[in-house]
């Protein structure tokens, strides 16, 4: 309290950001402009008559955007007024935002490379509910940012260096995380990138061929088939490299601490971030593991907060912790939840029609190419696809279960990528039962349990069980007086 009383007067006057905040407005405007007008811009780039004036147009554009960014910076002020952050912004149309402290979900601090060069910090403030999306104060002096952060987090959330970190990624762990990412996806992306520039590459290759002696060319013509696996390997390696670099950039020096009532996380290479999240604001805990990750013995844990009505993508509010082993996940879960799922829990499974129907639908979907192009090769591919569908559906069915405890629910699904989601019944927002005509005839239904962080669907449950689950969930929601966030 003492500290608050001392620092409060500092922000009682409306204040501007550091002058370099202009940079952020500028880049953001460029980005928005490029994103909304990229077809026009692409068209302009192709048109010869306009390209002649490209320099001029560019200069005018940059000048205009700079002026706009500067004005935006000039008209953006923030201050603190009676336990609320007040932000005024807008060049022509003024906007005044009042964010009460208790509506603030988390305060992220960010340091990009240019921040570090000038000793600055950016703050991003997530708010909950319908009061608005996130607010950004992109450039503050380090001391100011710390003061503001302390005030916004109501002093209670001071940094707790004393607490033993739950996760501290060193180079070895980082390497393992990078190595167990989805390389195939990265490989495909890099392959796509190469295909996009194949034309100039081919010319260059042909020139190279001309320079070679004819015997070499002949040899190449004979052994090019052997090059296919080599190419595949090459792209896989590129994918691996991309994963590694990505992991290092994102998770460099990642540290997760569990203090009394909050989760603290910091890390990042080019963009350093740091934030604190009160534990009671967590809506759902999700852990995910691919095949490679299971071999290495760890999983990725995603912590879901409430999504606000405005940002439906919810990208900013999820917290991802990579590379947790079983023990660390258990520690995290034990801080968030009370129930012990290893004993005396009721396990429900979907009906077997779940995988039968799923494999039929997927097979039917695979039939379309064959109908369009009836060819023996396509038929072989179709049969392979069908077998794969049956296998995948069966394994997914075997991997799907929901474990029910009086106050909590654990939902497992997936085969290659296994997902576990854990929620408290009382944190649900609404419950629905859904069944199509076919399922109604078989006495089955899907139960959709909607949390503030998204739905969990329990597929193909017997109607009686579905109704019991719903009634239990509603009972838990309606009888709980504790706040859900």
């Amino acid at each position, binding site marked *: 309290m003492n500290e608050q009383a001392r620092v409060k007067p500092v922000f009682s006057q409306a204040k501007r950001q550091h002058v370099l905040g202009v940079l952020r407005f500028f880049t953001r405007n460029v980005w928005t402009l490029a994103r909304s007008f990229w077809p026009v811009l692409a068209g302009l780039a192709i048109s010869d008559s306009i390209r002649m004036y490209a320099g001029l147009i560019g200069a005018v554009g940059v000048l205009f955007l700079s002026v706009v960014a500067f004005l935006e910076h000039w008209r953006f002020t923030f201050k603190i007024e009676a336990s609320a952050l007040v932000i005024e912004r807008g060049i022509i149309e003024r906007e005044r935002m009042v964010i009460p402290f208790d509506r603030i979900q988390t305060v992220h601090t960010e340091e990009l490379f240019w921040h570090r060069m000038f000793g600055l910090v950016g703050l991003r403030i997530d708010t*909950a*509910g*319908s009061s608005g999306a996130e607010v950004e104060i992109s450039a503050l002096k380090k001391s100011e940012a710390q003061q503001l952060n302390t005030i916004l987090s109501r002093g209670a959330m001071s940094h707790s260096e004393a607490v033993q970190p739950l996760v501290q990624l060193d180079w070895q762990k980082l390497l393992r995380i990078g190595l167990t990412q989805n390389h195939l996806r990265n490989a495909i992306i890099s392959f796509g990138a190469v295909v996009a520039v194949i034309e100039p590459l081919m010319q260059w290759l042909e020139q190279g061929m001309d320079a070679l002696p004819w015997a070499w060319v002949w040899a190449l013509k004979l052994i090019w088939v052997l090059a296919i696996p080599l190419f595949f390997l090459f792209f896989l390696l590129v994918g691996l490299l991309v994963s590694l670099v990505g992991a290092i950039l994102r998770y460099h020096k990642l540290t997760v601490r569990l203090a009394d009532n909050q989760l603290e996380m910091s890390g990042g290479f080019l963009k350093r971030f740091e934030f604190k999240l009160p534990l009671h604001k967590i*809506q759902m805990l999700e852990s995910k593991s691919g095949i490679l990750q299971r071999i290495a013995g760890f999983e990725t844990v995603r912590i879901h907060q*409430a*999504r606000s*009505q*405005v940002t*439906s993508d919810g990208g900013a509010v999820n917290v991802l912790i990579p590379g947790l082993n079983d023990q660390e996940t258990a520690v995290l879960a034990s801080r968030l939840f009370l129930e012990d799922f290893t004993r005396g829990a009721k396990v429900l499974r979907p009906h077997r029609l779940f995988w039968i129907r799923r494999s039929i639908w997927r097979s039917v979907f695979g039939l379309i190419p064959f109908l369009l192009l009836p060819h023996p090769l396509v038929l072989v591919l179709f049969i392979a696809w069908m077998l794969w569908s049956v296998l995948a559906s069966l394994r997914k069915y075997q991997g799907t279960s929901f474990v029910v405890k*009086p*106050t909590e629910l654990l939902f497992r699904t997936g085969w290659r990528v296994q997902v576990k989601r854990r929620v408290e019944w009382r944190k*649900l*927002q*609404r*419950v*629905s*039962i*859904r*069944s*199509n*005509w076919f399922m*109604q005839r078989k006495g089955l239904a899907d139960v959709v349990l*909607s*949390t*503030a*962080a*998204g739905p969990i669907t329990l597929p193909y449950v017997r109607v009686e069980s579905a*109704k*019991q689950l*719903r*009634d*239990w969930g*509603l*009972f838990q*929601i*309606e*009888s*709980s*007086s504790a706040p*859900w*966030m």
Partner: protein
Amino acid sequence: MANLFQNPTSPLESLPPIDEDEFEPMPARYRRQRWTVFAVVVCLGIGVLCAPIVWLALQEEVIPDPVWGMLIAMGLISVLWAIEEFRGFPVRGVLLRERDLTFRSGFWVRETVTVPFNRIQHSEVSQGPLARAFGVCTLKLYTAGSSGANLRVPGLDFERAQELRAYLDERAGKS
């Protein structure tokens, strides 16, 4: 009932169930609105498809197969839709309980959504021009966690919707 809610270890059987027979049906005016929409859309669709058939027949030209295919598909969809309206309308209904509101709908895909009052963020009653002509309106309930209304109850009597809304606004957000 109040006692039961204070008892967290109550067995599943004694939980207050959602009684499938107690749902309050939607007003007959809303049924007329739905059938009107059905009739207009089907007539327009068939009309648009029949025009080229009649025209080609008058020209004594061969009518291409895709046109027939589209007509058959249109007919099938109309039949499925008619069944949905015919069998699905009696299913539609709301159930108001002490602490939640349930809406049930659909024949081909049946959905029963329950929203507890203490999770409602805000509510809304809206009425488009068509609904105004038939004297009905839509009640929308918003809970946290996704964009848009999480429960839409279309075709409510205007007075009934206002009543419902007043009832649940009184209870919204409280536990």
